[in-house]
C-alpha cells in the first residue's frame, strides 16, 4: 500500500460575485462544495467532469494557489491549509502545476531559459553558469534542444510550449504536480507526445499527479484512479479500470456513454443521451445536485443530499447506485 501524499477534508471554495448593478444581493458560486479525497504517493488521480464543475479550483486549492473557504488540506500528513506564505515556501517547492493553455501561460517577453529557471532562482541562489547547466538538462529531459534556450515563447509550437511548461514544473524536483488539462489545447498528433513524456517523467522521478481532463479516453489511459465531479461535488471515486467497466453513479455512466468513441462499429450501441443542461453553480439544485438531469431520480433525491459513501475502495454519492 502506498502512503497518502495529499489529502483534503471537507474542502469548500465559494466565490462571491460582485453584487449586481440594481443593488440585488451578491451571489455566490459554489465552485468546490465539500470535497474530501486522498491522493497516494506515486499514483495518478484523474479529475473529470464537465466545464465549471470545479476541477481547476480544486487543483489550485490542493497546492494552495487558492485559499479554501473552509476545510483542510494535508500534505505528507501535515495540515497546510493555514500555513503562512513563509511557511508554505518550503512545501511549495514540492508542488507544481502545469496549465492548460501553452499559449497564455508563458510570459511572451521572457526567454525560455528564464521561464524554466524562474522557480529555481526564486528558491535557490545559483550562478549564471549553474543556471544554464540546469536548464540545459531540463530541456533535454523534456525533449527540447538546449540551443533554443535564448529564444522567446512565440517561436515555439503548442507542443513545444507545453514541454517548456513541463520543464519549468519539474525544475525543483517536485513530488506532486497538478496537470490542469495539459494536452487539451494540443493537436491530436502532438497530444500523445506530451502524454508519453508525462508518463516517462513520472516513472523516472516518482511523481504523483492530479490529472485534470475532460477527455475520458486520455484519462483511462493515464490514470490509476479517477474522481468524477459534478457541480462542485464528488460523485464517484475509484480505480479507473473498475469505474469504466462498471460505473455505480448514474452521472458517471452517462458521462462515459457520451464520450465519443473512435470506432464507428460502436456508434449505435450506446444510445444513452443525458437530457437537459448543466445547472448553475450559483443556484445549486436541492438534494442531490444531479437530480434535475437524473433519469433515476425519486422524491428523496430532491430533498436530501446523498453522502459520499466508501466501500471497498469505491466512493459514491447517490441514493440509488447502479447495480
Amino acid at each position: 500500500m502506498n502512503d497518502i501524499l495529499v489529502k483534503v477534508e471537507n474542502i469548500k471554495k465559494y466565490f462571491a460575485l460582485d453584487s449586481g448593478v440594481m443593488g440585488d444581493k451578491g451571489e455566490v458560486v459554489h465552485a468546490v462544495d465539500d470535497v474530501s479525497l486522498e491522493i497516494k504517493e506515486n499514483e495518478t488521480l484523474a479529475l473529470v467532469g464537465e466545464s465549471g464543475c470545479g476541477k481547476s479550483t480544486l487543483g489550485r486549492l490542493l497546492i494552495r494557489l487558492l485559499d479554501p473557504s473552509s476545510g483542510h488540506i494535508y500534505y505528507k500528513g501535515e495540515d497546510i491549509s493555514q500555513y503562512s506564505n513563509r511557511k508554505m515556501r518550503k512545501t511549495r517547492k514540492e508542488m507544481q502545476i502545469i496549465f492548460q493553455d501553452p499559449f497564455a501561460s508563458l510570459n511572451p517577453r521572457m526567454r525560455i531559459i528564464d521561464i524554466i529557471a524562474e522557480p529555481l532562482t526564486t528558491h535557490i541562489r545559483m550562478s549564471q553558469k549553474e543556471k544554464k547547466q540546469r536548464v540545459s538538462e531540463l530541456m533535454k529531459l523534456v525533449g527540447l534542444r538546449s540551443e533554443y534556450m535564448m529564444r522567446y515563447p512565440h517561436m515555439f509550437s503548442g507542443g513545444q510550449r507545453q514541454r517548456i511548461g513541463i520543464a519549468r514544473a519539474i525544475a525543483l524536483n517536485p513530488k506532486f504536480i497538478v496537470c490542469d488539462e495539459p494536452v487539451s489545447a494540443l493537436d491530436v498528433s502532438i497530444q500523445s507526445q506530451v502524454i508519453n513524456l508525462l508518463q516517462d517523467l513520472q516513472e523516472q522521478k516518482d511523481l504523483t499527479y492530479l490529472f485534470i481532463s475532460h477527455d475520458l479516453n486520455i484519462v483511462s489511459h493515464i490514470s490509476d484512479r479517477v474522481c468524477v465531479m459534478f457541480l462542485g461535488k464528488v460523485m464517484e471515486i475509484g480505480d479507473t479500470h473498475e469505474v469504466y467497466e462498471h460505473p455505480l453513479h448514474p452521472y458517471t455512466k452517462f458521462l462515459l456513454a457520451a464520450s465519443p468513441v473512435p470506432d464507428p462499429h460502436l456508434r449505435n450501441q450506446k444510445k444513452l443521451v443525458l437530457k437537459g443542461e448543466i445547472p448553475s453553480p450559483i443556484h445549486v439544485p436541492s438534494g442531490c445536485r444531479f437530480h434535475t438531469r437524473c433519469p433515476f431520480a425519486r422524491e428523496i433525491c430532491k430533498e436530501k443530499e446523498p453522502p459520499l459513501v466508501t466501500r471497498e475502495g469505491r466512493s459514491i454519492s447517490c441514493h440509488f447506485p447502479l447495480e
Partner: protein
Amino acid sequence: MVDTIQPLLEIKHLKTQFFTSKGIVPGADDVSLTIDKGKIVGVVGESGCGKSVTALSIMQLISEPGKIVGGEILFDGRDLLKSSKQQMYTIRGNEISMIFQEPMTSLNPVYPVGKQVAETLLIHNSHLSKEAAKKAVINMFELVGIPDAKRRFQVYPHQLSGGLRQRIMIAMALICKPKLLIADEPTTALDVTIEAQILQLLKDLQEEIDTSIMIITHNLGVVAEVCDDVYVMYAGKVVEHSDVFELFDHPKHPYTKGLLKSMPRSDVDEQRRKLYSIKGMVPNMLRPPQGCRFHPRCSEAMDICKKTEPTVVTINEQHCVSCWKYNER
C-alpha cells in the same frame, strides 16, 4: 436498375490562397470533395490544415487577403464560382447554410434570438407574414430540442447556455430547410453530455429533413459517431477519403494511420501502454514541404516522397489515398 447516388456538392481542384505580407499561404490546395445527397460527410485534420477555408470557399465567404484562385464548386449542377454575388446571396442561408466555428460571434448580442432566426427566414421568403415566421421559428426551436421554445423566442444570446446557443445556431441554419448544412466544429466548445445531444440531433434532423451535412472536426470520435464518409486533410490537401468503416478498419495513408494509433482508447488492456506518436510537428504553411507534405514526419517515406507530390490512388470505389506507397504498381 441500380440506384445511382447523386452528388449534391462536388468540389474539384479547389485552390484558395492567402496573400499575406510574409508570402502566400495555400489554405486549400487542390481540394476535391464530394457530398452525396442525404449523406453526412466528415472533414478531419489538425489545426490549420484547411478545413474552415474549404467550407468558407463553398460559401464564398473568403475575405482579404484570401482568394479562390482555381477549381470548380458544383452545387446541384451549378458552378458556384461562376455565380453572381446576387445568386450567391440567395443560395447562402437558403440552399446552403453554415454553422460557424465561433457560435458567440455569429449571434447578435442585442437582438432576441427568435427574432434573428425569423429574420433569416424572412430574407429568403419575403411573402411570409411576421406571425407565420414566428410560428415557423418556434416549431424549429422545438425540433432542435430547445425546451420552452415559446419563451425562448424572446431571450437574448447571453441568457442561454452554450448548448442552447448552439441549438439556436442549428435552428437558424435549418430554418430555410437547406439542401446542405455545413457545420464547422459544431460541438468543440461543448461539454460531452451536450455534445452527445447535439450529435444525436444532427443525425435525427438529417433523417427528418433529408439535408446533407458536412461536419468539420478535429475529433475522430465525432467522425466515428455520425459520419458516412470521411475526408482527411493535412497541410491544405486531402490525403485520404473513404467510407467511415473502411477508414477506421483499413486506413491507408501513414498520417491517418498515425492519427488513429495515437488516440488513447478506453479499452482497458491498452492502459499505460506507450502511445504511438507521430514525430515532428505540423508544417509552417508559408513554406510547406516539397513533394509529399507529410514526408518529414512520415515513418514510411521513400526517396520519391521528398521530391514529387503523390497522385491520388483509388483503392476501391469508396476509398482514395494520396501516397506513394500505393502508387508503385
